[in-house]
């Protein structure tokens, strides 16, 4: 995913540094530096190529192009793009990992109620 239109996402630019709890009810694109926790419940988080996130993340979908240190919980899917570097456990229903992505941690695929687990794809 390339950098999204800012009208569709809340956008944290690469010069922005945030420390603390971050929650919201819209999709979020982070190309800056966040330290704390991020909770978006029914929305998506995208960590851009310049993004550095040190936080536990909870969202519907998480797309990572940059660096993320922390546990990732996604109720729907996680995507690790080729430039992603993730250190932390990933819990989700579906995960896609591009060639070149780095992951250090556990992958736990949670079965959706009434459906079989959808394993990782590349």
């Amino acid at each position: 995913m390339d950098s999204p239109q800012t009208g569709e996402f809340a956008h944290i630019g690469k010069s922005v540094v945030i420390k603390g709890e971050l929650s919201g009810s819209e999709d979020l694109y982070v190309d800056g530096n966040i330290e704390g926790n991020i909770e978006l419940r029914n929305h998506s988080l995208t960590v851009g190529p310049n993004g550095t996130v040190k936080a536990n993340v909870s969202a519907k979908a998480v797309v990572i192009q940059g660096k993320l240190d922390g546990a990732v919980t996604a109720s729907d899917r996680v995507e690790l793009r080729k430039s992603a570097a993730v250190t932390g456990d990933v819990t989700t229903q579906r995960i896609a990992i591009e060639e070149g992505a780095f992951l250090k941690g556990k992958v736990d695929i949670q079965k959706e109620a009434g459906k079989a687990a959808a394993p990782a794809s590349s």
Partner: protein
Amino acid sequence: MASVSDNVMKFFRNSSNQNVGSAVPQRLTRRSSGMGEISRLLNSEEALCVLDMGSTSASNIRFFTGKGHKIYSEDLLWSSLDPALRIQDNAGNPVLDSKKFLDENLVYPNARFDIVLCWNMPDYMEESLVKPTIDRLWSLMKPGGLLLAFFHTRDAGPDSICYRYHVTATDVLEMQEVKFAAPGRPATDKQSPRLQRVFNNRHIENLFRDFASIKFFLARDAIREVLVVR
């Protein structure tokens, strides 16, 4: 005195930075007796806890999670190249800080593994880290757990290609050349790790002396597969 960059570069082969930016490297295949034994365990047990110590592999994660097992991924070879690990001993020689390495890697307070896939990591890792790493793995495995490692035989040349391994549903492994951008080098300047040494049988038995049993499989491609039981 050699720079940090010079010290790091001894872990890479000289001639492999061609094809930078080319498509994903081609995958070769090899039959693995050790993986065959592990496959039988994977197929007969549920919810096993697996540690994959190769480069992050989407296909391995897909394979293990698809079978309902828990998969942990940790690329120790890459982690061992961290320039912050490089210190000097009392004589001023560059050495790796194995204590710092183990403080930052293989830290799983809540996990005990049924299967550990070391692949060829011990042959390409700085020697001072190998034994402490194997000892840590012993403490992280369940009694009866299996560890698979590949060691080159003396027939392998110093420029033996470093492969990452992707599991399949059988005893056949897909192999893909590993290329890293060395720390301090541009991300586009990817090179292949260099074989650091060849362990003989006695060295290998010493490495795993705390384990319950060890089984060797000699393959045709100058690889000695080692399947160890915790």
